């Protein structure tokens, strides 16, 4: 059992120290290099949005936070001294901005109603083409499963959710999470453990470990 679990884990411990690529990218950003700006967006746009979305559970709020994060990164890149990796630096800004957004939400927007029927999650023309590899049933099943997980994730306490999201969605190591959240390594372990426990409790009876759906042939009556 333990061996099978270990085989599922492909993550390795990561160092939080910046690599040369981060330092070069930061220096290029300071010099106003256009490819550096492109590269930064290409590298961090998706993970920062994913992190913000899972921390806030609202696509429009996540979009606002992502813009604020990149604005701060662009304007404060001079303050990046390379004492941590660029990723943890940006993720720390993201977590702080998500906190600010949540505070602002509870103060001002908890009674607002959005005008948009659906979040803008358009992927362009390519999203309109059918996926030849998956059936509509699989698609709906995945959508419902994702909705259940998102709902459960949004219902657990914020500190636990942050730790779980940074670990399982952002893919940070425990040391990096400790650096992003400015907490000790033991607290990180505790929060991830309790976050996963809380998440599992929310999903009990609603989402169990998948069993294969088998369609048994039956003779025609």
């Amino acid at each position: 059992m333990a061996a099978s679990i270990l085989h599922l884990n492909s993550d390795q411990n990561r160092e939080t120290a910046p690599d040369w690529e981060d330092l070069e990218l930061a220096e290029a950003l300071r010099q106003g290099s256009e490819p550096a700006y492109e590269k930064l967006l290409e590298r961090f746009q998706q993970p920062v949005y994913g992190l913000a979305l899972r921390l806030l559970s609202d696509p429009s709020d996540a979009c606002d936070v992502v813009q604020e994060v990149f604005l701060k990164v662009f304007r404060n890149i001079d303050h990046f001294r390379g004492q941590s990796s660029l990723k943890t630096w940006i993720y720390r800004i993201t977590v702080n901005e998500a906190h600010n957004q949540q505070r602002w939400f509870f103060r001002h927007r908890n009674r607002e109603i959005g005008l948009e029927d659906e979040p803008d999650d358009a992927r362009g023309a390519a999203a309109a083409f059918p996926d030849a590899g998956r059936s509509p049933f699989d698609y709906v099943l995945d959508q419902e499963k994702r909705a259940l997980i998102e709902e459960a994730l949004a219902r657990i306490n914020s500190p636990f959710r942050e730790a779980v999201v940074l670990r399982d969605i952002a893919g940070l190591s425990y040391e990096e999470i400790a650096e992003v959240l400015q907490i000790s390594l033991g607290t990180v372990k505790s929060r991830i453990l309790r976050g996963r426990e809380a998440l599992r409790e929310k999903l009990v009876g609603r989402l169990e470990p998948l069993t294969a759906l088998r369609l048994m042939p039956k003779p025609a009556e």
Partner: protein
Amino acid sequence: MTCEEVQNSVSAFIDRQLPGEESVLVSLHVAGCRRCAHLAERHNYTRNIVRELANVQPPVRLAFKLRVLASHERRRRLSQISFAARVRTWSEEARLVINNLMKPLALPFAGGLLSALFLFGVLLPTFRFERDITNDVPTAFYTQASVAEMAPFGVNDAETIVELTIDQRGRITAYCVPNGQDSPQLDANIANMMWYSTFTPATWFGQPTLGKVLVSFRRSRIIVRG
């Protein structure tokens, strides 16, 4: 290692975040403990389903906004590198503002100008400029007073020259006889002549002014010299 210790470390264990020795101990315990193995399996399942949420793409609109933001910030940063870069940025911004202001006006302005020139060229031959030059006011520096209409009678003397002073209204204000042949009869004749004669006043830049007229009476004719 006890079950409680394993349960506290199970998340870190499945994340391979435990130190080597502790990881080995937990692994050995999990291999021999059905309950802890089940717990590890549940944590692993929970971790995997959360990982499925990781693959979320940002909206296209957000990606566009981020590119615009990056472009603005890069331009702002470049403008702060040196004074020359700042001046160049200001000039480019001023040029952009002028272009944005002028471009909407350029086509209407050019069209209006060309239309006005075309219409003026077409309509110019139809214009008529008429000027009545019969009663034109002389605008020379000075024009002398003159006799508009002379009395139908003269004087009886053989030849007499009279100098008349004409005011702005064309009236005689004074007269004198240069030849010195003044007489009561001549004065009466001159008075009759003044009474029935009309004069045009002298002008200075078109405005009536005082002037003198020399009138020479002969037996058969009258000669007037301004």
